[in-house]
Each structure stands twice: as C-alpha cells, then as structure tokens.
C-alpha cells in the first residue's frame, strides 16, 4: 500500500524540482548504503542554505543514534524527579500517571510489573512516535501533503498541506464537515508554512488515554490533546523538530516536550526493518525472565 504512495511522491518531488541532494558517502557494500552516524560537524565553511519550503530528506538526530531514544522521557522534560521537570498535571492527569507502571523514569517499576502498551506492540500513536527511538526518519512531500516515515515499527504518517481544516475534537472522535469520525493513533494532521523555512503542523483526534502514553516513563496523554509541531529548516543539513502539547484534560497548561536537532543523511541510505514483533517480544521476555530467575547466577 505504501509503495505506490512513495513512488508517486518521489515522482512528484522530482517533477517539482525539489532536488534531493546527495550528501557524504558512507560504506555501501554492493551499493547498499549503510547509515552514517559519524558525519563531520557542519562549519561555516560547509554550511549551505536550506531549500525553500522543503522538508524532503532522510533525517536523524544530530546527536547520534541515542539522541532520540528518549528512554528517560521527553527530551525537554526528562522524568528524573527534578523540580524543574515536574509537569503541570491536572488531578485527573496525576491519577492517570499513577496508574501507568513504566520501566523508565523516576517512578519506574521492575520488569514484569509494567503495563506499557509498547510491550505488546500496540501502535504508539502521535505524539509518542516522536518520543520513542527516533532515528532515521524520512520526509516526503508533494503539493498536498508531507509524509513522515518513522523507522521504529516501520510506521508512516500524513500531514496535509492543502489548506483543509483541522477537525473539531468532540467526545470519542472528531467532527469533519459536521460528520463524526473515528479517533486514530496518528490523529488528523494539517500543516502550513509560516515562512520559507518554518513548517508548523497541528494534530488532533488521537486515541484515548487507555490506549496510548506520552512517553516511556508513563506520562499520560489524552484524546483531547492538540499537538503542535514546528519543523525549522536551519540550513541545508539541519532541521530542528519541536513539539508542544496542549491537553487540558491531563495538563493544566501547554508545555514544550522536545526540541530535537536533526541532521540530513544520504537519501540512498538503506534502512533495516525495525519492527515490533509480538513473537520476538515474547522470546525476548522469555530469555530475560530466565536470567531474572537467577539461572546460573553466582
């Protein structure tokens, strides 16, 4: 299903003159380019201007493969118990947080006692896909939309850019043109260019709080959230991906969750699959639990 979409988008990108620049080479046995996590830093001498109104490219956290992992919680507010990272929970939000048993963060539980929906390969939804193992992420665009391909679990998402309205959130779903529509893991996203190098997207209509988490430390998110993402193209090789959430059901005020610098990678880079497989997850748990029982421990 995705392949025809991508093929048409690649064609549109080429036709619209949005040339995809080939960047520095990395090992490519047989022509299969391997991700390059050791790019030289961008300097004044190597910095090139960004193309106008384009996010096209294969992007990855500029800080390396671990910079977008976010195991300790969203980048801007790691869940480490420090007062400056305390969140403005509503009473309901606080109650929700306490009901989540996460493996990471200040209130982490031990393995086997957690209830992270990630562990059963449930879709993480928006915005958690932005907060979970963000590594090589591909952006395609045409005159109607921008499409993000997340590496984790081989997921993709559409942000419409053709001027359509953001749906109205109502209990249990959204209204589009007066018609009631379902909630979605990726919600409904629309975006626009606020200047030639800054794209802002908003997402509503996401899944309810019993299906999704905000991050790996069990912070909650509800179906009343409005997610605002800002993609700022700093130069040809740098994109800063920021996000703010406004979820009055869970948080008493909007707050910024991340500001992640991304580095452009060679668009020909081949990515291995990075799926969540229930059977492999089960095998992992079996091995881990076998060790946890102390088999062979000294």
């Amino acid at each position, binding site marked *: 299903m995705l392949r025809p979409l991508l093929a048409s988008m690649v064609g549109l990108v080429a036709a619209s003159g949005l040339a995809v620049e080939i960047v520095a080479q*990395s*090992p490519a046995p047989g022509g299969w380019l*391997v*991700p*390059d*996590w*050791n790019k030289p830093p961008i300097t004044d001498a190597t910095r090139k201007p960004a193309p106008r109104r384009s996010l096209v490219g294969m992007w990855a956290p500029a800080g*390396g*493969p*671990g910079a977008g*992992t976010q*195991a*300790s919680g969203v980048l801007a507010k790691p869940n480490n118990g420090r007062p400056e990272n305390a969140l403005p929970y509503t009473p309901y939000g606080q109650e929700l947080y306490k009901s989540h048993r996460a*493996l*990471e963060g200040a209130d*982490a*539980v*031990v*393995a086997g006692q957690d209830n992270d929906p*990630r*562990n059963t390969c449930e879709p993480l939804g928006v915005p958690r896909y932005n907060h979970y*193992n963000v*590594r090589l992420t591909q952006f395609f665009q045409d005159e109607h939309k921008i499409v993000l391909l997340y*590496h984790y679990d081989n997921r993709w998402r559409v942000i419409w850019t053709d001027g359509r309205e953001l749906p109205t959130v109502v209990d249990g779903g959204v209204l589009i043109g007066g018609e009631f529509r379902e909630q979605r893991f990726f919600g409904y996203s629309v975006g626009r260019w606020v200047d030639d190098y800054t794209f802002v997207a908003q997402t509503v209509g996401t899944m309810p709080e019993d299906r999704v988490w905000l991050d*790996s430390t069990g912070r909650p998110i509800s179906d009343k959230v409005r997610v605002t993402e800002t993609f700022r193209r700093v130069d040809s090789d740098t994109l800063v991906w920021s996000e703010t959430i406004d979820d009055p059901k869970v948080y008493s005020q909007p707050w910024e969750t991340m500001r992640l610098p991304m580095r452009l990678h060679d668009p020909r880079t081949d*990515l*291995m*699959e*990075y*799926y*969540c*497989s229930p059977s*492999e*997850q089960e*095998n*992992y*748990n079996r*091995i*881990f639990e076998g*060790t*946890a029982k*102390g*088999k*062979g*421990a*000294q």
Partner: protein
Amino acid sequence: MTIGRLVVLAVAAGLSLSAAPSAHHSSSAFDTGKKLVLKGVVKQWIYSNPHCFLMIEVKNDAGEPVQWVAETQAPSVIFPAGYRRDTFKPGEVVSVTVEPFKDGRPFGRILQTQLPDGTTLGVAGSPPAASVQAP
C-alpha cells in the same frame, strides 16, 4: 559476586564507550559506568528485535560454567557499527565488555566485543572504521 578466572573487572580501563539506554527493562538496572570484561564461549547469538542477545558461557573461580546474557540494541541500530547476523558463531571464544546488572545477575549491556580474529566492535554509533579493524 564471584568473578571467575576468565572474567576480569576492567575498572577505568580506558574505555570511553557509552551505550544508549535500553528499552524493555529499566535502564536503572544496569551499573552504569562499571565495566566487566567477560571472556567465554559463544553459545548463541540472537539477532532479533527488540534487542539482540549474546549468550556466552564463562567459568567462575570454581571452574563452574556460568551462562551470561550480554544484550545490545536492535539489529537495525547496531548494524552500522558492524554487527551482523553471523558475527558470533557457537563455540568461538570471544571477549565482551559489558555494563552488568547491579544485582549480580549474569546479565549485561554490551559496550564492546572482541572477535577471535581481533576485530573489535563498539556500540551503536561507533565509526565503522573503528569497528572493523584488521587483526
């Protein structure tokens, strides 16, 4: 914890490697900063999501075999650093530097491995040139 003849505690061994936090158990379970060098026989290499496992048999002080599990990240994450599905073969003797669990269980997070031919592989993000050295 008894550390076997083939297990050398490598404190401040000049290793400046670091590992990104793992996902499916708490990162706090690991004794971050502690480095343990395990030398043992490969029993199994599981190249699979969500994390890869290297099962090695290491002898303790009494000469008894201890089954260690050395974990690293998903194949797609460690592939650029040189780890492949056939990197480790059963019966081979390898040296693995891990961050062990705090509680003494024989489980650790891989920081570096040395293969029988002398090739050294690092963590995700290690330069491929440094990961595939000539013996």
